[in-house]
């Protein structure tokens, strides 16, 4: 775009690099230090001690359980999204009844519903059906709030399939079911992996619904575990930061291996 180097921009971007990188540096180094080492050296020094105790401590304090719960919720949310969104997007893109057009408007409208605003009625509904403090109670609203963005992303990628391909299927006498599995699904793999990553991230990092819908140790998810950990171990910074590290490792792995889908999934949050 520009030919000569822009020194001012270079300076600004380096400052922002420091702002982003320093906390990450402290996060990583502190989590491998002893509490004494960290307290005497301070957060910005080079680490003087090395230990893995913080990580083993985190697991001893129940983080294994929190991990399991978070995995269960994440997989279920992704499962629900995968079952519900592809048929919906197919209907939105190819359906020509008035109802399917209305549905798209409905989901566009749904983009604007902030989840904070409905925590009281969600709490009311979930406790009334006896799902309070049950992971299923967290899964259902989390999946519902992942639907509008996922639908927007996937219907966008399904629109890229050319009408000629649909016509060819129709000429062969294919039913919608056959068209869906033979044509639509194989050709929208990119969009599908984006919505998988997006909804997984939503569920993994979700805080609001676990906060208001669960209570006991047995149903605690990792984000809530961090919050609880802070009130318990507020002064033990290395232990706390090791827990933060653990919570982000699966996301980092996804970042390394599915960067494209992740970036697109995050941009999809633009709809949120």
């Amino acid at each position, binding site marked *: 775009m520009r030919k000569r180097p822009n020194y001012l921009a270079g300076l600004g971007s380096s400052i922002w690099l420091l702002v982003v990188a320093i906390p990450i540096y402290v996060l990583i180094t502190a989590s491998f230090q002893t509490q004494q080492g960290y307290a005497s050296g301070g957060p910005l020094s080079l680490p003087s001690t090395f230990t893995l105790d913080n990580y083993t401590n985190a697991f001893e304090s129940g983080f294994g359980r929190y991990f399991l719960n978070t995995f269960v919720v994440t997989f279920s949310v992704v499962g629900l999204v995968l079952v519900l969104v592809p048929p919906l997007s197919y209907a939105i893109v190819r359906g020509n*009844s008035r109802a399917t057009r209305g549905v798209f408007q409905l989901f566009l409208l749904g983009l604007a*519903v902030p989840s904070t605003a409905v925590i009281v009625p969600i709490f009311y509904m979930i406790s009334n059906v006896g799902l309070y403090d049950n992971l299923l109670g967290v899964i259902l609203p989390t999946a519902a709030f992942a639907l509008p963005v996922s639908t927007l992303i996937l219907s966008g990628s399904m629109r890229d399939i050319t009408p000629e391909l649909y016509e060819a299927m129709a000429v062969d006498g294919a039913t919608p079911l056959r068209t869906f599995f033979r044509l639509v699904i194989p050709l929208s793999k990119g969009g599908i992996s984006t919505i998988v990553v997006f909804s997984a991230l939503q569920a993994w990092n979700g805080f609001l619904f676990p906060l208001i819908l669960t209570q006991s140790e047995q149903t605690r998810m990792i984000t809530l575990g961090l*919050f609880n950990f802070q009130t318990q171990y507020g002064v033990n910074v290395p232990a706390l930061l090791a827990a933060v590290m653990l919570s982000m490792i699966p996301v980092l792995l996804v970042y390394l291996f599915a960067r494209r889908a992740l970036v697109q999934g995050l941009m999809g949050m*633009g709809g949120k």
Partner: protein
Amino acid sequence: MTALAPRKRSTRLGGPSVGRPGFVWAAPATLFFGLFALFPLVLVVVLSFTAWSGLGDPRFIGLDNWVAIFDDPILFKSLGLTVLFVVLALVTQVPLSILLGVWAAGFQKNRAVLSAIYFIPLLLSSAAISVLWRALLDPNFGIPGQVPFLFGDGNLFGKQSTAIGVLTFVAMWQFTPFYTLIFQGAARAVPPVLYQAAEIDGAGTVRQFFNVTLPQMRNSIITSVILMVVGGLTAFDTVLILTNGGPGTDTAVTPFYMYQKAFRAFDFGQASAIAVVLVLAATAISLVLVRVSGYGKMQSAQEGI
């Protein structure tokens, strides 16, 4: 339902309507979404006219909650704080993310590497970010103690002004990467021919930025502002973990206050009334922004993309 109605022979999407999916394909997702996202929006209005403590059934009490919240000085204080936080978020995040986004839109190798690092805060949950910054800014074991010339006595959570500063800064740290990503995409979508034309006219880098890049990114800027406003009006997770609304109620923004009313004071009726106020405010501001900016016209031109 409508699925059984005879399909119209529309050629809107080209081709015959043989083999078109009916409403039945959309029904499961629509019902699910209606039940857990749209129905609660109606229910919250209903609950705002009831008294409910979380146990037993809500009791209809007419306008009492509404009368009570309009007579609640803490609510008005929280609304003022919320507006302040939204304004601070806008003035810090919009310019920064536009500059970073335009910068990151360049295809140089070093920019790609740095963009990958800038991206990291986006991967962390709000809970992780809040816990991390709470630890980093700890008065005794954190960064303020190590660089006293920057932070004075180091207790940033003890005063309203510094606590607001911390929350604004953490919000910036958390959300700038996301908006940077949006503006990076927008800057890359500017047709290169416009820059070539500007160059022929003798415009330098700065003039090109103000006269080509910014106007071309208009839609993205409006979208981002709307997202920041709606997000700022409704998010409270960082407040809950970083300051817990304190000192006192000095950082208790309205959504946090609503959460407290509901899940700590167990006054779910009043909390619902506050939630309705928030939804109305967010919707009204978004509509005004869309109207004033003329975004609606452009959006309808792109509808369905």
